């Protein structure tokens, strides 16, 4: 009798349960954060180690991302140069251009007539006097073609080069993108390396969090035993440790983001000076919102998994039987 009565008094009603459950988790999360912040040195060191471990792949990602954007900028300028035979007039060149504009592979076909090519050459190269000696214009009409990005892979460009070379008006085709392709391949390689490194360091974060939680379980063994004596369920005892792991991950991710952002800010000046020397502008991209969310979500998940492993390995030993 006493049992059922006391149960009726202490148990929340079924309707209240989701709120109670949520309240517990919220309270546990906040209490755990409070506990971590009350030991700022120990928490700070763990968070810093996680932050540095995560900042490394994140920084490499930023590097490759920026290089890709840089190359992307060149890619748009990279064109196929179609040199026509000398006997074609600028009007013929316009005709060829008109036909080529129908091809779906090309985004832009620009005609540089022989006369305008000569004028440009004269103004840019400072060969004005030498050119004046010539009786005829030695320059052919040129079509500058920009392929659609979808047709800009190495093999497709090669195919286009062949097809364009078979046109009767075309003298020769020059594609200046081979080094670009190589660079792209290097970037792909670098990106794979970033992924591998990220995987390795993620494993490191898992171990760091796991070890930290293991030590905390050891330090609080007495408390855990008493909680078990008064009837705490396994999940109730686990909860603060799991939250601690998640907090370590989240704070570590935030500090990784902070480190990378500081590095980007520090590099912004030198990079724009370098870009100026090339008469260009290059705003250095940092970690975007999506990357930030990925880092925070990923680091939190790592912290959670790390603590989950530690909790499952080390809490079992405390349960009396």
């Amino acid at each position, binding site marked *: 009798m*006493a*049992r059922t009565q*006391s149960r009726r*008094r*202490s*148990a*929340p009603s079924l309707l209240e349960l989701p709120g*109670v*459950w949520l309240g*517990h988790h919220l309270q546990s999360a906040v209490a755990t954060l409070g506990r971590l912040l009350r030991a700022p040195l120990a928490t700070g060191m763990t968070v810093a180690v996680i932050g540095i471990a995560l900042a490394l792949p994140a920084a490499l990602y930023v590097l490759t991302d920026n290089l890709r954007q840089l190359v992307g900028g060149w890619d748009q300028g990279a064109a196929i140069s179609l040199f026509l035979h000398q006997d074609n007039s600028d009007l013929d060149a316009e005709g060829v251009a008109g036909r080529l504009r129908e091809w779906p592979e090309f985004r832009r076909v620009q005609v540089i007539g022989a006369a305008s090519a000569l004028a440009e050459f004269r103004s840019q190269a400072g060969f004005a006097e030498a050119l004046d000696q010539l009786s005829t214009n030695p320059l052919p009409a040129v079509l500058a073609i920009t392929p659609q990005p979808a047709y800009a892979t190495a093999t497709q460009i090669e195919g286009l080069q062949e097809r364009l070379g078979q046109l009767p008006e075309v003298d020769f085709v020059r594609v200046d993108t081979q080094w670009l392709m190589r660079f792209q391949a290097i970037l792909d390689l670098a990106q794979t390396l970033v992924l591998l490194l990220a995987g390795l360091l993620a494993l490191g974060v898992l171990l760091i969090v796991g070890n930290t939680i293991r030590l905390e379980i050891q330090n609080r063994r*007495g*408390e855990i*035993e*008493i*909680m*078990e*004596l*008064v*009837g*705490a*369920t*396994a999940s*109730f005892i686990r909860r603060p440790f799991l939250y601690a792991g998640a907090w370590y991950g989240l704070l570590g991710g935030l500090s990784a983001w902070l480190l990378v952002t500081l590095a980007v800010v520090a590099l912004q000046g030198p990079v724009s000076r370098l870009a100026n020397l090339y008469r260009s502008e290059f705003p250095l991209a940092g970690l975007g919102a999506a990357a930030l969310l990925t880092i925070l979500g990923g680091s939190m998940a790592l912290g959670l998994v790390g603590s989950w492993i530690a909790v499952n390995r080390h809490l079992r030993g405390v*349960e*009396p*039987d």
Partner: protein
Amino acid sequence: MIRFDHVCKRYPERGDALSDLSFEMEAGEMVFLTGHSGAGKSTLLRLIGLLERPSRGQVIVNGRNLATLARGKIPYHRRQVGMIFQDHRLLADRSVFENVALPLVVTGLGHKEIGRRVRAALDQVGLLKRERALPVALSGGEQQRVGIARAVVARPPLVLADEPTGNLDPDLSREIFALFERFHAVGVTLMIATHDLARVGDLHHRTFVLSEGRLIKDTGAG
């Protein structure tokens, strides 16, 4: 309330702590458990609280066979059993209030209700004014009363005490036993392991005498 059926508990390192123990105890009874050190008193209490499982035989508490109770159900069994220890087992870094609140916190009771019940329990043991103190600031007798408040705060039908007055002088000991008498008066079932034969003699309750793991004397209902 409690039934032991030919219970044996054998520890690999020190042999039989209990051998072939059988008894039955009604709800609302108050029983003293006596016998010299190592007679098996603590082991008996640990079996009831399910801190250990018997090697053989059956322990039935509140109609539940503890031998077959699933691991996940153990916490819910312990919530029905208040446990008091000689060394108090308080958390040194938590206040008196927080220590007493622990059995309620783990059940997920609301803040207000916890505050109300903890203060009621502290009032019962006369420590209402010390709720903010840390256990180290309390005397041994006060610490034990905190332990008692923690054991009864969730109003369990069964309270077990293992040498609750082992370290206390006779006056404090008398106070503690007076508390147990009050719980007994409101229908709580109590089993108290003690060396304090003077108190046992005064109080005329059913008494078990254990020797080398066997029940050698049961005075029957007091």
